[in-house]
């Protein structure tokens, strides 16, 4: 026995240890055989439809219980399609010219789904997939194949499959499923999304040949955080993962207790502590660590994973998933923030001497309005019933912000005209990450609903230093008095105009900076999820008065080194 490790794309967190169950869905090939009489074939079709109705009803009930009515509604719609007279009519027409029920059904489903596929409105066109799914279900029953081979799982197992359809994922028995691993799929595939909603560890994209390397019953360890799958683990490996799993579970439990509480300073001022996330699967992690919202959702991951920009539907589903995981807490979605340092292949990037001073972020969005509008449409649609905000990166000028807001309004008008449901009242704000924006907060406040300080870029642009250049990176000092003055000015000017000011840069999660920022009156601290518990704890220990004193002292120093030394002393006494 030799232990062997394979690696895929981690899409849903968690560790599972158990036997593999190889899931190979039956191929639905139609046997060549003579058709019965019209009545016989129609009777077979009717019986199959009846069976399908029962299956769909139990799927509907199961998903309603485990996820939500919204997730389950799809199976209700499938039931309606099952009894569609147009479907019945087409099948009958086929049977009457001598086809078997199977042949007639395949043809009917193809014709009906083709009618929908060609429609201009994406919402209507997407229903073609449902027609096909219903057709496959009835066909499978006609061929007398079981619902899915998944129903033959008898002991808790890790499911290994080529790919998982929504119906497959939905029909997993939570008591018997430890996790799943597939050869196909990506972070944003439907099954990955559902795995996260159900809290199942999942790894996808293992590549072809997965099912040849694994057989049912083979012991496996899977790590949904790293994407590692260990075949035939030895006792030592199993013991190690059991320990990690136990630690993780007790850690999550203690975090959960702390996470339920809202953050207040010790004199009772409410302060939001939120998370910065850059992919869909971190939303759950953020919640587990007690995030009271998402202060920064980076959307670049959607744009850099493919050779073409993400479709509106794909973005809609990912945003919706994140909003749902955050269940009513605020989520600030930052629009596309890329530049020449990491160019996607589908944008015409010029050769730039200084990509960080070049064509990037909002500048690209304004020059590529279609790309920008697609993202705005997806956000506005997904925001229905949720607490979302839109934030533009790297604004340095009032006119830029006005133009961007005009595009938001144009997108809303288009959605209205197309009768597409969207949230009309989503606040729109900016990141303050250029010294220009920090100096202009009072002016920008006329068209910005809120501000969020991005300290990494603000430090880089204020200090004129590239943090990636080892020769000068020592000057990258977010606690530098010059940066702190801009931060204080931003908060004061924002508050003077009655605006909310948060921070989503790394500084917001640093204990040595939190007392100063609290003293400045910052409304929200958004950080890496793992830094949240400690930040909440620290804020709870301070009064606003105490924080103001600390901030005042800190601002009396002339260098970052002096401020750091002072803050070390402050923290030691807290």
């Amino acid at each position: 026995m030799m232990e062997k490790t394979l690696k895929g794309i981690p899409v849903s967190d968690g560790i599972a240890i158990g036997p593999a169950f190889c899931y190979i869905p039956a191929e639905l090939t139609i046997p060549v055989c003579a058709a019965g009489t019209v009545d016989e074939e129609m009777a077979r079709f009717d019986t199959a439809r009846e069976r399908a109705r029962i299956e769909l009803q139990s799927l509907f009930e199961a998903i309603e219980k485990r996820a939500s009515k919204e997730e389950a509604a799809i199976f209700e719609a499938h039931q309606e399609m099952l009894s569609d007279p147009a479907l019945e009519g087409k099948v009958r027409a086929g049977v009457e010219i001598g086809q078997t029920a199977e042949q007639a059904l395949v043809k009917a489903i193809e014709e009906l789904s083709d009618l929908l596929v060609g429609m201009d409105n994406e919402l209507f066109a997407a229903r073609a997939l449902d027609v096909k799914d219903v057709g496959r279900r009835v066909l499978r029953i006609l061929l007398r194949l079981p619902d899915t081979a998944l129903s033959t799982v008898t002991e808790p197992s890790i499911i290994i499959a080529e790919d998982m359809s929504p119906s497959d994922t939905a029909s997993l028995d939570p008591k018997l499923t430890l996790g799943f691993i597939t050869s196909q799929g990506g972070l944003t595939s439907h099954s990955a999304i559902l795995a996260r909603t159900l809290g199942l560890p999942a790894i996808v994209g293992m590549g072809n040949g997965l099912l040849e390397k694994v057989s049912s019953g083979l012991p496996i360890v899977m790590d949904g955080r790293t994407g590692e799958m260990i075949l035939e683990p030895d006792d030592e490996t199993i013991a190690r993962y059991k320990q990690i799993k136990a630690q993780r579970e007790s850690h999550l439990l203690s975090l959960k207790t702390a996470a339920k509480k809202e953050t207040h300073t010790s004199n009772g001022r409410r302060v939001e502590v939120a998370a910065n996330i850059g992919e869909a699967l971190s939303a759950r992690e953020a919640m587990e660590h007690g995030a009271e919202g998402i202060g920064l959702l980076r959307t670049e991951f959607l744009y850099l994973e493919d050779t073409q920009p993400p479709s509106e539907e794909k973005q809609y589903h990912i945003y919706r998933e994140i909003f749902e995981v955050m269940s009513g807490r605020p989520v600030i979605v930052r629009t596309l923030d890329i530049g020449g340092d990491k160019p996607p292949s589908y944008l015409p990037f010029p050769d730039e001497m200084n990509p960080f001073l070049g064509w990037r972020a909002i500048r690209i969005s304004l020059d590529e309005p279609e790309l920008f509008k697609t993202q705005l449409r997806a956000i506005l649609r997904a925001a229905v019933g949720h607490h979302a905000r839109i934030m533009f990166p790297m604004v340095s000028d009032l006119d830029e912000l006005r133009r961007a807001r005009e595009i938001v309004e144009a997108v809303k008008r288009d959605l209205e005209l197309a009768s597409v449901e969207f949230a009309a009242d989503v606040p729109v704000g900016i990141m303050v990450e250029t010294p220009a924006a920090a100096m202009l907060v009072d002016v920008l406040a006329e068209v910005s609903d809120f501000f969020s300080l991005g300290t990494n870029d603000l430090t880089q642009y204020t200090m004129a230093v590239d943090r990636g250049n080892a020769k000068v990176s020592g000057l990258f000092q977010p606690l530098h008095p010059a940066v702190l003055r801009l931060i204080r000015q931003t908060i004061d000017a924002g508050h003077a105009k009655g605006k909310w000011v948060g921070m989503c840069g790394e500084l917001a999660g640093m204990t040595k900076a939190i007392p100063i920022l609290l003293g400045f009156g910052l409304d929200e601290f958004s950080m890496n999820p793992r830094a949240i518990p400690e930040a909440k704890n620290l804020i709870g220990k301070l009064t606003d008065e105490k924080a103001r004193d600390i901030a005042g002292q800190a601002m009396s120093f002339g260098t970052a080194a002096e401020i750091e030394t002072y803050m070390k002393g402050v923290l030691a006494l807290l």
Partner: protein
Amino acid sequence: MAEATIQVKNKVGLHARPAALFVQTANKFQSKIKVKNLTATGDLVDAKSIIMVLTLGVMKDHEVLIQTDGIDADLALDALKSLIENNFSEA
């Protein structure tokens, strides 16, 4: 035979829940019921078929023509008209 032209005013048009309600209501009657989207090009389709109703692509502010034919033609037309006029009872 009875017929009427009505403007659809609800937010999503004849899609999702409203489309299902429309088809379910049509199926309560014996009459043959057909519907056509006057705002877009296309034919009259069977109002009792969810798939065919979806193919009409009826969105907010589109006008539809409904034709009913049979012993309960008037009742069916009234029921479908009031369903649309009341915006499928959505708030």
